[in-house]
C-alpha cells in the first residue's frame, strides 16, 4: 500500500487550492523523508559507543560558575571594585538574554529545533519498548529562588517525529496521570479501546498520509504499556536501606531533586536512553548569598548519590552523566552590592559543566578562564563541540546524525563545523 494514497488533485482540493506549488513541494519533501511507518532511526551507532545511555542534570536558570566550580581565589581582594576594562574589552553589556536557555539543550536558540534527547531518541531508539526513550523529570520549586518558567519546547522534538519528544513526569502527585484504569474498566476493555482508536487513526493516515498520525498511534501504544511499566518504575518500596542512606530522606518525597535522581538511576537500569532532570531556581539575578545555599542543599546530595549509585551498581561505565545550565553568570553584581546580598546577571562568555561516567575522561578539568571568570584564556569549548562530544560518547558521528527538513540535512550541531573534544574522552 502506498504511504500517500491521496492524489495531488484531492490534496489541493482539500486545501482549497491556496497552497502554492513551492510550499506543496516542501510538504511532500518532508513527508517523503519521514517515511511511512515505524519509529524512524538512522540505524545502529556509527561506531561502538562508550555510553549506552545518558542522564542530564539541568540546572535551569544558569548556576554562577565562580561560586561553584570555577573558584577564583583572587576575587575576594577585588570586592566592591570595578571590573577592569581590559577584561570586558569592547563587549556590549546586555541586561537579560532571555531565550538563550534553549542553547545547550537543542544546540540552537531558535524555537523549533529538536532537543538533544529527541535527537538521541531518533538516532538510537528505545532500549525498553515499554518506556519512552526520552524522559524529563521536573523537580519541585525551591521556595524563594528565582524560578524561571520552563516549557515543553525545551524537550520538544522540533521537526522530528513527535514521538521523539521527551515525556515529562510531574513533580507533584502521580508522576504520570491516569495510569490506573478507571473503576469498571478492565485491561481488556482498555486494550480494545486503544485498538479501536488506533484503527480510526490508521484510516486517517491512509486518507491524509501524515506521518504524525503514525506517531500518534505509537504514542497510544506506548501509553498503554506505560500503565504497567511506570508503576513498577516508580515503586521504590523495595529499595534497600543503603539507597536512603545515600540519597537522603529527601528522596522519599516524590518530585524532589533527590527523588528524581533515584528515579533516573531506576530508569538507567530499565533501559531509558536519555533522562533529563530539571531543577529550576538558578537564575540568581538577586540574593545569591541567600539562595545559593538552598539550591546547593537541594541538588548537591542527589548529584553525588546518583553518580555513586550508578558506579556501585556497575552502570556508570556506560551511563554518561552531564551537569550544567544554560550559560554563565557575571562576576560583577547586578543591583546593589553588600556582603550578604548581591545578584549576578547572565554571562555568555564562559560557564562550567561537568560530566561523569560513560567514557568521559575522569579527574580532569578542561579549559581555563581569567581571574574574573569572564573570558576563556585556554581551550575554549563551544556548545556545539560539547554536543558533538556527547554524541561521540554515545557512538554517533555528529556529522552523520541528520534529518532532511526544509531542504537541509539538519544536525544537532548545526552548520558551523563542530569538533569532538578528544581531551574529554577517557
Amino acid at each position, binding site marked *: 500500500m502506498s504511504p500517500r494514497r491521496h492524489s495531488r488533485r484531492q490534496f489541493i482540493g482539500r486545501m482549497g487550492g491556496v497552497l502554492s506549488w513551492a510550499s506543496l513541494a516542501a510538504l511532500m519533501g518532508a513527508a517523503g523523508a519521514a517515511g511511512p511507518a515505524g519509529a524512524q532511526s538512522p*540505524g*545502529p*551507532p*556509527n*561506531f*561502538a*559507543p562508550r555510553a549506552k545511555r545518558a542522564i542530564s542534570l539541568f540546572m535551569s536558570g544558569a548556576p554562577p560558575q565562580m561560586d561553584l566550580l570555577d573558584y577564583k581565589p583572587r576575587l575576594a581582594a577585588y570586592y566592591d571594585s570595578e571590573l577592569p576594562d581590559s577584561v570586558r574589552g569592547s563587549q556590549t553589556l546586555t541586561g537579560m538574554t532571555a531565550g538563550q536557555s534553549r542553547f545547550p539543550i537543542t544546540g540552537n536558540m531558535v524555537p523549533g529545533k529538536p532537543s538533544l534527547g529527541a535527537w538521541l531518541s531518533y538516532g538510537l531508539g528505545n*532500549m*525498553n*519498548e*515499554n518506556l519512552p526513550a526520552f524522559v524529563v523529570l521536573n523537580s519541585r520549586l525551591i521556595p524563594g529562588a528565582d524560578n524561571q518558567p520552563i516549557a515543553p519546547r525545551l524537550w520538544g522534538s522540533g521537526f522530528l517525529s513527535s514521538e521523539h519528544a521527551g515525556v515529562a513526569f510531574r513533580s507533584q502527585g502521580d508522576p504520570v496521570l491516569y495510569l490506573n484504569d478507571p473503576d469498571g474498566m478492565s485491561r481488556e476493555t482498555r486494550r480494545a479501546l486503544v485498538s479501536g482508536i488506533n484503527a480510526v487513526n490508521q484510516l486517517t493516515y491512509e486518507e491524509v498520509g501524515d506521518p504524525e498520525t503514525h506517531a500518534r498511534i505509537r504514542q497510544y501504544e506506548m501509553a498503554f504499556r506505560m500503565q504497567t511499566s511506570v508503576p513498577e518504575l516508580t515503586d521504590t518500596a523495595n529499595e*534497600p536501606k*543503603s539507597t536512603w542512606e545515600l540519597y537522603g530522606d529527601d528522596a522519599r518525597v516524590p518530585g524532589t531533586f533527590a527523588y528524581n535522581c533515584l528515579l533516573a538511576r531506576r530508569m538507567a*537500569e*530499565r*533501559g531509558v536512553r536519555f533522562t533529563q532532570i530539571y531543577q529550576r531556581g538558578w537564575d540568581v539575578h538577586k540574593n545569591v548569598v541567600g539562595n545559593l545555599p538552598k539550591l546547593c542543599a537541594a541538588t548537591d546530595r542527589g548529584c553525588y548519590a546518583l553518580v555513586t549509585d550508578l558506579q*556501585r*551498581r*556497575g552502570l556508570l*561505565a556506560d551511563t554518561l552523566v552531564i551537569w550544567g545550565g544554560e550559560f554563565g553568570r557575571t562576576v560583577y553584581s547586578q543591583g546593589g552590592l553588600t556582603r550578604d546580598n548581591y545578584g549576578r546577571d547572565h554571562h555568555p562568555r564562559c560557564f562550567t559543566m561537568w560530566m561523569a561516567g560513560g567514557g568521559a575522561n575522569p579527574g580532569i578539568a578542561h579549559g581555563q578562564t581569567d581571574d574574573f571568570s569572564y573570558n576563556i584564556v585556554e581551550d575554549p569549548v563551544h556548545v556545539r563541540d560539547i554536543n558533538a562530544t556527547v554524541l*561521540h560518547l554515545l*557512538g554517533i558521528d555528529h556529522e552523520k546524525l541528520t534529518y532532511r527538513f526544509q531542504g537541509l540535512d539538519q544536525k544537532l550541531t548545526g552548520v558551523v563545523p563542530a569538533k569532538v573534544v*578528544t*581531551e574529554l*574522552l*577517557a
Partner: protein
Amino acid sequence: MGTRARLALIALVPILGLFCLLVFAPPDGLERASLAQFFGHFHPLAVHLPIALLLLVPLMEIAGANPRRAHIRAAAAFVLGLGVIAAIVTPLLGWLLAWSGGYEGALVTRHMWGGATLAAACWITWILRGHSRALYPVALLATVGLMAWTGYRGGQLAHGEEHLTQHMPQTLRSLFGLPAIAGDGAADGDPATFYGARIAPILKDHCLLCHSSEKHRGGLRLGTYAAIMHGGKDGPVIVPGNPQASELHRRISLPAGDKDAMPAEGKPHLSAADIKLMDLWIAAGASATLPRDAIAGAARVAGPELPSAPDYRPQLQQIAALEASLGVQLVPRSQIPTDGLILRTASFPAHASDATIARLAPVRSLIVDAELARTAVTDAGLAPLATFTNLRKLDLSYTAITSSGLRALAPLRQLETLNLTGTATSAAGVASLKSNPALKHIYLFQTPAEE
C-alpha cells in the same frame, strides 16, 4: 621500400631502446639528476594520451563499419599512428621518472614491462592493420586489454594499491575474490600496541603513497616499523625519546606552504591530534611493543579495540527469527559488522530464562554483550552461556545465580566486565573467576561478597 615500411623501421628503434633500458638500467630506488626528474614528471600527464587514442581506435573501426561513415574508419589509421607515437614516448618518460625518482619493487617493474610491451603491441597492431583482416582485430583487442592492465598498475602506483577497489561494494568484492574490508585495520603492527593501533594507521593514511616499499621518495619507507627506524637517505628520521630532534616531527609540523612540509604536493596534512600522537609516541621511546594505552595524555581511540566477533550479516534472517520467537533483542553494537551484537532483555526481562540462552546457540559467537539483569536466568543457564566465547560484558545483576554457578563461566576468555549486583555471590564465587584472564571489572554491590 615504401614510406610505411620506413616509418615502421624508424619506430622500432625507440621501442628496442626502451627494452634495453629496462633490462640494463632498471630503476634501483635511488634519486638522480633533476633534469631527468623534470621530464619524468610529465609521465603522469602524458599517460592520458595513449589511453585516449587507443580507446578511440576500436570505436572508430566499429563506427566506420557502416559504409556511410567509411571516412571515420579511414581516420582510424591516423589515430592508431598517433597512438603508437604516444605509446612509445610515454613509457620513455615513465622510465625517466622511475629511474630518477626513487622507485623500485614488483609493482613498478610490472607497470614498466607492461608499458614497454604495450608500445611493442601498438607497433605490431599498426603493421597488421591493412595486412591481415583476421589478425588485426585480435591484436587491437589485446592491445587495449594490455593498456587497461598497465594503466591500472600505474594508478596503483600513483593513488595507492586499492584506489579502484577500496570503495567497491561488498557483493562486487566477493565476485572479484577480493578480501572483505576489515574495518580500519592497521597497516602493520599488532593492534594491541600503541604503534600498531595509533601510529601505523596515521602513516598509512598520510605517508605510504610516497614512502612505501613500492615508491620511496628520499629513500624513506614508512610501511614497516624496521623501515621507519632505518630512516631515509639522509639518516634516521626518528630520535627515540626526542621528538624535537626528529626529522619526522619537523616535517609534519611545518606550515602547509613550507617547501619541506610533509605530506607534500597538496596532500592533506596531519591533524593537530595526529601530530600530538606521533610526538607522544616518539617521546615515549618510539617503541613497537609498548601497549596501546600505555602513553598517558594520548586521547583514546573510539570504538572497539580489537575485532570482537564474526560478521553478523550472513545470519540476519536467523537473528530476526530468534528475536521474534524468544522476545529478546539482538542489537548490533555499531554499524561495523564485526563489533558484535548486544543481547537485550530490558523490555521483558522475566521472559528470558535458561532455555532462552540455550536457544541462542546458533548466534552465540556473535554476542559480545549480554544484558541479563532481572531475568529468570539461573545457574543452569550459565553452562550454555559459557559457550558465548566472544562475550566481553555480562550483566547478571538481580538474578538467582549463585557462587557455584559462576565456575561454569571459566571458558569466557574475553570477558572483561561482570555485573553480579544483587546476587548471592560469595567471596568463594569471586575467587572462582580468577581463571578468566581478561576480567577487569566485577560489580558486587548488595552481595554477600561485598564485605
